[in-house]
């Protein structure tokens, strides 16, 4: 113990114990050593973990969008083009904006200032779209305001110059530039190309600081040249639209085929929609020519008759007694409206006699008849390459009873699409050869399949020419300067398994010039309700106008004098048909 006397002496000799100094110094140096140890740990052992955390915060994979290919008609006229647009987005936590800027920005974005500032106060998100797909000039004005935290993003907008005229064929893309409908959907991979990517480090304000790896350059999509002829398409659309309106019809469709190649030159539907702004399109977006089946009615008869001619039992001049307009098969009776007595095969087709056609068809084995229908494409998808195309219904011949066979002969109890029907008529146009369909422009005609003999095909064409002559069902299908061959159809619609009263599908399928057909046009008008409903009255005029315009556009040589059109006298009764 220290004595009190020694304590008084102590201030004169303040001891600074050396061990205390050393101990303290050691403690501090140990602190430095600990720091170095920790530094080694963080900078050599934990690096992977820490860098991964860092990457998660500021490295970003940027998608470099590829330019979507253009869709054009067969002459390279654009039907779908991608134009660059800019989307304006904001990072709310980084936005600093004054009242004046807010007002200007709101004006440019066409928004209310209050609405806009609400988006900026949403500080939980670091990415908010302010306006998508603005015209580049307008977006540039926004960027000129130079507001921190507001950015621009390049996107592409799909533009369809032909609008509703081509809507069902071309379709449209969604907001992510992916095909949603039509050929945009079918050829998505071809058109879209491969987007590139770029991995970058961004600073907190979203500016790119450096690239982390090599930039993957985007591969632009390919252009797609359709078989469509834009001018014929416009013409077809215009005439179809007019007919649907005039006849107060529910819907309509038209298909124009190149008879030599099987290319689809035009395909239009009503109702339609604007693919540039595809909203509320349910019920309008269907490409009816491909997706909607209907009982064809009389347009089926030429195939029955050609099957009978092929079998060798008949010639166009063979006379058939069709009686008094009623013919009983088992318990069922089939009827004719106008045709009576004994008619030649040609007349049976011209007058569209159900009984005559049925009598001819019933001479054939069910299998032979079925095989004819099947070979021209009924009951199987037409392989147009379109989404949603359907096969139609052609029941197996083994299940047929005689009345089935009889009705199928004139187009009842069987369903087809308009495109199938147009294609099938190619058999007559092409001297018996059935060409495959194509929506894409072909460089040379494809090889088809011989279904009937050339002789039968020509005989059929000759007979079909009579249909548009006075005394036939479709004088209104005539075209100035060209011989026309075709057939009307007036089918009662089936609803809930019953034939619905007063609801018809009027159709006309035909070709011209009949001497060497170049075009096949099929028209279908669904539920005309302005009085007329015969195919010859409703669909044939559309055919005539489109055919006339198209042949002229294609500069097809005439095969008839320009005064060939024979208008039936007004007092001559209209030749109607019940199917």
């Amino acid at each position, binding site marked *: 113990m220290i004595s009190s006397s020694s304590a008084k002496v102590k201030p004169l000799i303040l001891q600074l114990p050396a061990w205390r100094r050393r101990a303290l110094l050691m403690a*501090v140096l140990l602190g430095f050593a600990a720091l170095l140890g920790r*530094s080694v740990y*963080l900078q*050599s052992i*934990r690096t992977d973990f*820490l860098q991964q955390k860092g990457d998660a915060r500021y490295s970003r994979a940027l998608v470099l969008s590829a330019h979507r290919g253009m869709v054009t008609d067969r002459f390279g006229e654009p039907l779908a083009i991608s134009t660059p647009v800019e989307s304006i987005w904001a990072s709310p936590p980084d936005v600093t904006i004054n009242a004046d800027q807010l007002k200007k920005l709101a004006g440019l974005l066409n928004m209310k200032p209050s609405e806009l500032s609400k988006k900026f106060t949403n500080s939980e998100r670091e990415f908010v779209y302010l306006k998508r797909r603005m015209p580049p000039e307008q977006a540039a004005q926004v960027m000129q305001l130079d507001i921190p935290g507001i950015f621009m993003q390049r996107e592409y907008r799909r533009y369809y110059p032909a609008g509703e005229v081509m809507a069902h064929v071309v379709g449209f893309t969604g907001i992510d530039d992916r095909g949603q409908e039509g050929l945009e959907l079918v050829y998505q991979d071809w058109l879209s190309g491969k987007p590139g990517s770029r991995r970058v480090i961004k*600073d*907190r304000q979203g500016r790119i600081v450096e690239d982390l790896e090599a930039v993957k350059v985007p591969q632009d999509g390919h252009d797609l040249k359709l078989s469509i002829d834009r001018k014929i398409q416009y013409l077809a659309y215009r005439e179809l639209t007019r007919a649907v309106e005039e006849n107060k019809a529910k819907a309509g469709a038209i298909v124009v085929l190149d008879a030599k190649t099987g290319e689809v030159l035009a395909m239009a539907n009503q109702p339609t929609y604007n693919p540039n702004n595809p909203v509320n399109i349910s019920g309008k977006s269907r490409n009816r020519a491909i997706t909607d089946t209907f009982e064809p009615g009389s347009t089926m008869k030429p195939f029955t008759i050609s099957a009978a001619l092929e079998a060798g039992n008949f010639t166009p001049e063979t006379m058939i007694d069709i009686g008094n307009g009623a013919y009983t098969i088992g318990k069922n009776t089939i009827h004719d409206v106008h045709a009576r007595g004994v008619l030649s095969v040609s007349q049976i087709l011209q007058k569209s006699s159900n009984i005559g056609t049925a009598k001819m068809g019933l001479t054939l084995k069910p299998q032979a008849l079925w095989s004819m229908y099947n070979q021209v494409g009924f009951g199987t998808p037409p392989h147009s390459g379109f989404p949603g195309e359907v096969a139609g219904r052609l029941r197996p011949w083994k299940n047929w009873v005689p009345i089935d066979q009889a009705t199928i002969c004139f187009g009842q109890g069987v369903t087809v699409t308009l495109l199938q029907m147009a294609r099938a008529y190619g058999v007559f146009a092409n001297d018996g050869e059935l060409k495959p369909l194509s929506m894409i422009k072909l460089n040379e005609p494809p090889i088809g399949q011989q279904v009937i003999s050339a002789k039968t095909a020509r005989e059929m064409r000759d007979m079909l020419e009579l249909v548009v002559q006075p005394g036939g069902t479709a004088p209104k299908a005539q075209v100035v300067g060209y011989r026309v061959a075709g057939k009307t159809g007036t089918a009662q619609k089936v609803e809930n398994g019953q034939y619905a009263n007063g609801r018809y599908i009027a159709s006309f399928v035909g070709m011209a010039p009949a001497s060497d057909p170049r075009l096949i046009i099929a028209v279908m008008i669904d539920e005309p309700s302005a009085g007329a409903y015969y195919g010859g009255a409703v669909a044939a005029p559309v055919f005539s106008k489109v055919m006339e315009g198209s042949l002229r556009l294609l500069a097809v040589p005439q095969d008839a004098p320009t005064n060939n059109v024979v208008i039936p006298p007004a007092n001559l009764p209209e030749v109607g048909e019940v199917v």
Partner: protein
Amino acid sequence: MMYMLSNRDKITAPSYDQGLLWVALLLLGFGLVMVYSASIALAEADKMTGHNSTYFLVRHAIYLVLALTAGFVAFQVPTRVWQQVAPYLFIGGLALLVMVLIPGLGREVNGSRRWIPLGFATLQPSEFMKLFATIYVADYTVRKAAFLDSFTKGFLPMLAVMLVVGGLLLREPDFGAFAVIASISIGILWLGGINGRIFVGLLALLVVGVVVLIMSSPYRLQRIIGFWDPWADPFGKGYQLSHALIAFGRGEWFGVGLGASVEKLLYLPEAHTDFLLAVIAEELGFVGVTAVVVMFAWIVLRAFGIGKEAASHEHHFSALLAQGIGIWLGVQSIINMGVNMGLLPTKGLTLPLLSFGGSGIVANCVALAVLLRIDWENRRLAKGVPV
């Protein structure tokens, strides 16, 4: 070692500690470079700076000129003068700490009231209080040498003074400055030979006190939680630390290169002040961190060496003051770097001599000037020249 030198060597030998001076100047220069590097992005992005990228560089350079001038002046002041004015400086420091708390005088930034605006610059009293407290405690220990064994006469007055200082600092709040000043005080008392039992009791009291302080204030508790596991809430409480750690991880051994830090691009808050080391670690890697640590260790070693020399001349005040300055710079740099590396909870302490901040740089330079002055006096004494 002096006795081994010849008379001629004594006269031509340098009259000041060149090594210490150069290390200090090296740190200051390095600080200028790193503050610029760390602050470019912030200065460009900030409206307050007028989007001027050299905003912080220019100010830091002005502070350096001011600090070197202040250091030059301080070097002229004999140690005994510091001892004479120690209580007045301390009282002056206390007055500043009171002023900073008065609304209208003190300026509040981010919930802390630590700055007094002077028009052309802002004054941070706590930085100067570190210097004044070091001088005061050294003087106190010398004055109370006789009572260092006594609890009531030796320790209690110091405890009371420290409670006042601590109370004022925690009102700001500036927990970091208090930790540094408490470390300096305890360190000097320990070196001065305070009774071992009192010292142990004091440490125990400190631990209890710190725990109570942390528990009493939610923001401190948050900082503690963030430091334990920054990845638990990396975008909230652990945001700053997680970014600092990422900076270290990105730097690896040799760094991503001067100027190439990504963290400084507004991700890491306070990159040019409290978290400057993280930017150094990212840009210059482990090598850069090691250089900083070694330079600070060098300063501490020299401070203790100078203190030992002064003690050998029985200049007890000088000895304690020199070592107190060593403790100050050592403890503050260790705490700052520890915070940067996630070893210690976030404090709000700058890295001495390096970080941006006028008051800190000036106070640090004056302290180093005092240290150099003590060494200069030691050398005079060794040569038998009066100081």
